[in-house]
């Protein structure tokens, strides 16, 4: 049995993992950079180890420091959270080599699904519908031109090692191709250390719908419903919800079958998300698979009543998925707003600094997952996520009403936040009607 878990992450997700560990009675070790010494996850953990200076490369991404921290504290398991090393197959392997349980899927599965081009090929072979695109990695502009002509414009160039919306470029006509190709490659190289690109047909006005699955080490896969994540700004999700207002019972069953087929094709275990695009004709296309717990996992927890983090730990402990999961029902509706330290009145300029006043909302169906507090100094070295505000209601209307109320109750002073923007979206009639797609925010008047 796992006796001590080291959390190889920071911020709100580190806190979330610590909470799951506490409920299971498992002691925790936090690791932190010098910029995070006053962070909440450091204070809430049983032990804390400083692993490096502020920049992520030398701290949260420094595999040797993290493994070393596990060694000196006798931690026998590591939860990587999301981002950082969560989908790094070398790190997962290093844990294994050092007899530390990596709470997530195996290194080989992470590697397989982490290469987006290979993931597409694997899924295609398994009979999962994929977005029409290039078979292989695109080596040069000439190949790109050929592929784009074969697929048909408009196309989108994507980084093979990509994620988080970076290393992507839309190309509407051939004249734009060369420049788009070189800038996308450069962005991919800097962000992921790998400039390899692949190409997909651009499906316009699609909805981004993703499915939460959970697998144990015995080949059982559970389908935990879908999430609607079309409200995105520059490919970054801002508002997520479950279930999707565009998904009927029949469609849900279809999503479930395809997602489980995808997961079984790679022998998946632990938490995972299969991302799809659904076009206006309700055709479903596999986009990519995320082999980690995701930021927006709370909306799934609210509508299933299921603790995803505790289940990840249980699975890592060799337990089977509970039987009741095979026949669950989605209960009510849940919405999440990602609150960032960005100024929506200044084109979302990042706003680090000290939080002078903080008050979290409360009341029925309201949940706030955050690591910030009054007096907390937001470091400028990491992402701008301050916290997630999640509501749940008996139906979508109630979830929305609660979100509106909760956003009004939330006080964060001292830094600019995206709350005014969230309020505007929640009030929008098209959003309320559930009538939107991934380009919704492009035309949104704020």
């Amino acid at each position: 049995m796992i006796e001590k878990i080291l959390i190889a992450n920071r911020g709100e997700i580190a806190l979330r993992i610590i909470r799951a560990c506490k409920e299971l009675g498992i002691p925790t070790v936090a690791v932190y950079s010098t910029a995070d010494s006053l962070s909440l996850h450091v204070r809430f953990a049983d032990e804390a180890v400083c692993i490096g200076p502020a920049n992520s490369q030398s701290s949260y991404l420094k595999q040797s420091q993290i493994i070393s921290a596990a060694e000196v504290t006798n931690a026998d398991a590591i939860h990587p959270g999301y981002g950082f090393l969560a989908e790094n197959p070398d790190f997962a392997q290093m844990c294994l080599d050092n007899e530390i349980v990596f709470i997530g899927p195996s290194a080989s599965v992470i590697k397989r699904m982490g290469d987006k081009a290979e993931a597409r090929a694997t899924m295609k072979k398994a009979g999962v519908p994929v977005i029409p695109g290039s078979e292989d990695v695109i080596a040069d502009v000439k190949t790109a031109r050929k592929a784009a002509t074969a697929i048909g414009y408009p196309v989108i160039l994507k980084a093979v090692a990509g994620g988080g919306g970076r290393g992507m470029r839309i190309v509407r006509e051939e004249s734009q191709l060369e420049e788009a190709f070189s800038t996308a490659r450069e962005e991919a190289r800097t962000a992921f250390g790998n400039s390899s690109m692949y190409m997909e047909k651009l499906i316009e006005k699609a909805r981004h719908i993703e499915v939460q699955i959970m697998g144990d080490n015995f080949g059982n896969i559970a389908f935990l419903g879908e999430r609607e994540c079309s409200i995105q700004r520059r490919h970054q999700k801002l508002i997520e919800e479950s279930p999707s207002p565009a998904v009927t019972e029949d469609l849900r069953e279809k999503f479930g079958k395809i997602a489980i087929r995808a997961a079984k094709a790679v022998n998946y275990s632990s938490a995972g998300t299969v991302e799809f695009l659904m076009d206006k004709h309700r055709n479903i296309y596999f986009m990519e698979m995320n082999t980690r717990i995701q930021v927006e996992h709370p909306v799934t927890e609210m509508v299933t009543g299921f603790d995803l983090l505790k289940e990840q730990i249980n699975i890592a402990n060799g337990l089977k998925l509970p039987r009741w999961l095979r026949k669950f029902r989605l209960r009510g509706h849940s919405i999440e707003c990602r609150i960032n330290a960005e100024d929506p009145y200044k084109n979302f300029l990042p706003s680090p600094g000290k939080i002078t006043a903080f008050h979290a909302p409360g009341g029925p169906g309201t949940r706030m997952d955050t690591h910030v507090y009054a007096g907390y100094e937001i470091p400028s070295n990491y992402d701008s996520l301050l916290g997630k505000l999640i509501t749940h209601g008996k139906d979508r209307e109630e979830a929305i009403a609660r979100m509106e109320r909760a956003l009004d109750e939330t006080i964060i002073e001292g830094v600019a936040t995206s709350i005014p923007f969230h309020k505007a979206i929640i009030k929008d009639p098209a959003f309320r009607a559930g009538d939107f797609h991934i380009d919704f925010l492009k035309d949104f008047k704020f």
Partner: protein
Amino acid sequence: MKKSQILDLVKILESHDIGEIEVSRWGQKIRITKNLSGNAQNVVHVKESLLSNKPPHFVELAGIAEEHKPAPNEENDGGTEIKSPIVGTYYQSPAPDAEPYVKAGDRIAIGQPLCIIEAMKIMNVIESEVSGKLVKILANNAQAVEYNQTLFLIDPAG
């Protein structure tokens, strides 16, 4: 763990023919060992983590990119602080039965080996970046150390 619970464990140990009890609950572990010669001497070992929760490091958050090295060695009333660049286990000598690398009062030259920090089965020799007199050694042999933890105080004027 409550005192009464510990006394219960001691009683169990004394009245039975067992040498050792270890109980683990909610992250706390306690091990009670009976002296092997049969005396009713009970030595209580409470398993603790190797690192205690340290007070936070107050480091300035500059927008300047930081190097991989720890914060520049600060002036202290004892001298320049030599800090650990990595997480690991501190050893004062090159081998278990060898003489320690240095002791308080020694004259230190730049580049002189001060200690070993073991991380992931690799022995990293930490060399001094300053010269001067070794005022104080702040780590204990086989102690776990973290990034930026002060190990030595060297007085450059000494």
